């Protein structure tokens, strides 16, 4: 048999094209069947494949006599009408090409053949008797509270856990913390103790108080702490629910600030310079507002509470992450330059939040302070009435809190916008941040002493 239309012997074969079979409106078709396998002899005009066009299944014929060569478009593939579906080799005596392992003529065996058993429905084979049935809203509330669903009794139809059941569980826990502990080991077991304080730096001079952000702890300050410590006493606080501070529940921002104020009072320090990042920045503002004479300057790094949006996905992701692998992608969202997030950094960050109850408490806190991607508290009024030297430092590429939130600041507050920096300026731009802060501190110390406290008594700001 000869193949008059086939090109020279060196060519891999004559292409099988959909051509006119496609119909005039089509530019792509889906292969639904191959009628020949590689190695089969084919004749000009023989139907070798079936494709699906807009209207119907259409047969595709062999363009010449020969031996079926390689199949280029498998069953299920969608191809342009101009693309060859397969090739026909020169003639019947030409060596048959080795079949592709997964040619349609030799379909891969089905995964499980009990699907073929008559009367057996392969679709619904739920092997999940112990799956907990809970409403979406109940699941969300429980997660926000850091409660496991395991111990909650569902009172909905078929034992479904509903919102009311989660609320009941929370109430029960509040009523008897010991029971709660047994039922849901993840949450709120701490008895009151003071916030964790870490002191470094020189002995003399006005101390610098550092307040870290949500999901961090005082270790986040490492990149700038050393330099500041060379010139000032440095006091780092672990915020409530963070690091080695107590893990309590807070109903509001106001609630959350209270232990910080108490901790500050019990430090018995004179006036301090306060540096706060993110949530810590908002706390710093509250501190300046509540303890007017005690704060000499405010260095605020991407502070929370100045706008509405916050990226809840990142917050959720940080709270959920239970291993370095699941934490790293979220940490990467905090920076522009990924080289800052080394394996070591990730492992260290994970270590500070390894205990499930810390994560649960932070999730509950996030649900209060940042529900539904929204910052539920507003410290802009506090920023407006701050009188001590204040600087805002913000990364232009901050994904968590957009820098535009700084635009509500009053004129006497300076704004440093850092290009190509994310939500962690102290990590990504530690040199600039250090110099801005030192400059700020120097300016403040050049000022004629603490401002008049009488004028500055304000009512407590409640979120």
């Amino acid at each position, binding site marked *: 048999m000869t193949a008059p239309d086939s090109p020279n012997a060196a060519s891999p074969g004559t292409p099988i094209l959909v051509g006119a079979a496609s119909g005039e409106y089509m530019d792509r078709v889906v292969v639904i069947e191959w009628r020949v396998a590689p190695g089969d002899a084919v004749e000009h005009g023989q139907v070798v494949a079936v494709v699906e066009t807009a209207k119907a299944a259409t047969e595709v014929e062999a363009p010449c006599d020969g031996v079926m060569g390689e199949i280029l478009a498998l069953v299920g593939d969608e191809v342009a009408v101009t693309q060859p579906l397969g090739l026909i080799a020169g003639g019947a005596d030409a060596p048959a090409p080795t079949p592709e392992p997964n040619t349609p003529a030799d379909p891969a065996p089905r995964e499980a053949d009990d699907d073929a058993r008559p*009367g*057996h*429905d392969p679709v*619904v084979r739920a092997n999940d008797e112990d799956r907990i049935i809970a409403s979406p809203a109940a699941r969300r509330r429980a997660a926000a509270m850091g409660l496991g669903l395991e111990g909650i009794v569902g009172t909905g139809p078929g034992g479904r856990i509903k919102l009311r059941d989660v609320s009941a569980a929370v109430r029960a826990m509040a009523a008897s913390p010991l029971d709660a502990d047994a039922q849901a080991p993840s949450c709120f077991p701490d008895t009151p103790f003071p916030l964790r304080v870490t002191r470094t730096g020189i002995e003399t001079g006005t101390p610098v108080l550092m307040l870290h952000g949500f999901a961090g702890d005082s270790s986040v300050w490492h990149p700038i702490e050393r330099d500041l410590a060379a010139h000032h006493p440095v006091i780092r606080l672990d915020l409530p629910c963070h690091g080695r501070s107590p893990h309590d529940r807070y109903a509001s921002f106001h609630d959350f600030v209270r232990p910080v104020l108490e901790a500050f009072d019990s430090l018995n320090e004179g006036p301090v310079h306060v540096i706060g990042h993110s949530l810590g920045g908002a706390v710093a503002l509250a501190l300046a507002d509540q303890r007017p004479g005690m704060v000499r300057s405010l260095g605020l790094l991407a502070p929370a509470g100045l706008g509405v949006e916050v990226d809840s996905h990142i917050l959720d992701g940080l709270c959920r992450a239970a291993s370095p692998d699941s934490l790293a992608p979220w940490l990467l969202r905090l920076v522009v330059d990924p080289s800052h997030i080394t394996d070591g950094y990730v492992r260290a960050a994970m270590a500070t939040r390894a205990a499930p109850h810390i994560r649960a408490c932070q999730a509950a806190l996030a649900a209060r302070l940042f529900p539904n991607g929204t910052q539920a508290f507003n410290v802009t009024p506090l920023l407006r009435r701050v009188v001590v030297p204040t600087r805002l430092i913000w990364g232009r590429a901050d994904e968590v809190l957009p820098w535009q939130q700084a635009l509500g600041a009053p004129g006497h507050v300076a704004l440093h916008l850092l290009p190509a920096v994310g939500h962690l300026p102290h990590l990504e731009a530690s040199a600039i941040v250090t110099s801005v802060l030192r400059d700020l501190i120097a300016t403040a110390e050049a000022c004629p002493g603490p401002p008049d406290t009488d004028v500055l008594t304000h009512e407590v700001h409640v979120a």
Partner: protein
Amino acid sequence: MTAAPATPQNRPSLDEHVDMHRLMVVTRTLEEQLGVLHKAGRTRGPIHRCDGQEAVGVGATAALDPQDYVTTTHRGHAIYIGKGLDPRRVVAEILGRETGYNGGRAGHMLVGSAAHGMMGGNAIVGASIPAATGMALSIQMLRQDRVALAVFGDGAAQTGICHESMNIAALWRLPVVFLLEHNEYGLTAHHSAQSSVPDLHVRAAAYGMPGEQIDGNDVVAVFQAVARAAGRARRGEGPTLIEARTYRMEGFSTSDKGGYQASEERKRWAARDPIVRSRTTLVDALGTARVEDVEQSAAEAVIAAVAAAEADPYPRFVPHAASATHAGPADRVTEDA
């Protein structure tokens, strides 16, 4: 197809005429009884009475054989009765009773009884036309000795499907008879506001089929025209369009506020009442006593039927299996048997 004999000149026979007269009286009494029930609030929804048009439905169906099909409109009472349906069960259907032909599901516009070849009233205007045409197609496919009769109004004659059906029927020589029951109005609109031509049978020429206009209040004329057309259909000569001119005496429906039919016009037509005219002929042939006897027993039968139907029970609701939205039981099967 068996060759059916052409209509003998002597049909309808006197007996056939008496029977048609009886059925017209049945229909008229039924319409009047429904009027009474409606006023008394014992009916539901609007009812489309055919007072004054009885000769069309009764004459046409009398010319058919029992196996022939008929489709009709929202105004089909004369057809139901003419096609041999039991008045008691027709009334029961109209009153939504379990004993109605369709168990109360259909109501007066949509009565069907396949056993009688009564293939449905239809309340989608025009829909009776392709319906009969499709039945004619089936008859042709199956080579049966049957015809299909489409009854439709002058309003329905203006629909697109009327044109489409007539073209196809003529094209394929389908055994269908198109009976246009022209009662001057489509709902409240006079035919002059609906049709570009006053006479509608002329349209038959455009399809290459015979078309004739007849006096729709003359039951014998209706019988004969339909018999001729049915004969043509049976002989494979294709469809015919018959325009039967008649008049709707009681307005569009029981919820018609009226006001658009001139009383002059109504009077003129009242003088041509199909029952009065039929009676005159019969009295000449049979004498008053015999005719009055027929009329009285027809009326009494209807009144009894209405009373019986009113006493019938309402249906109990049963879900419609063929409308099921889910295959098998709704509950998920959890156990493997």
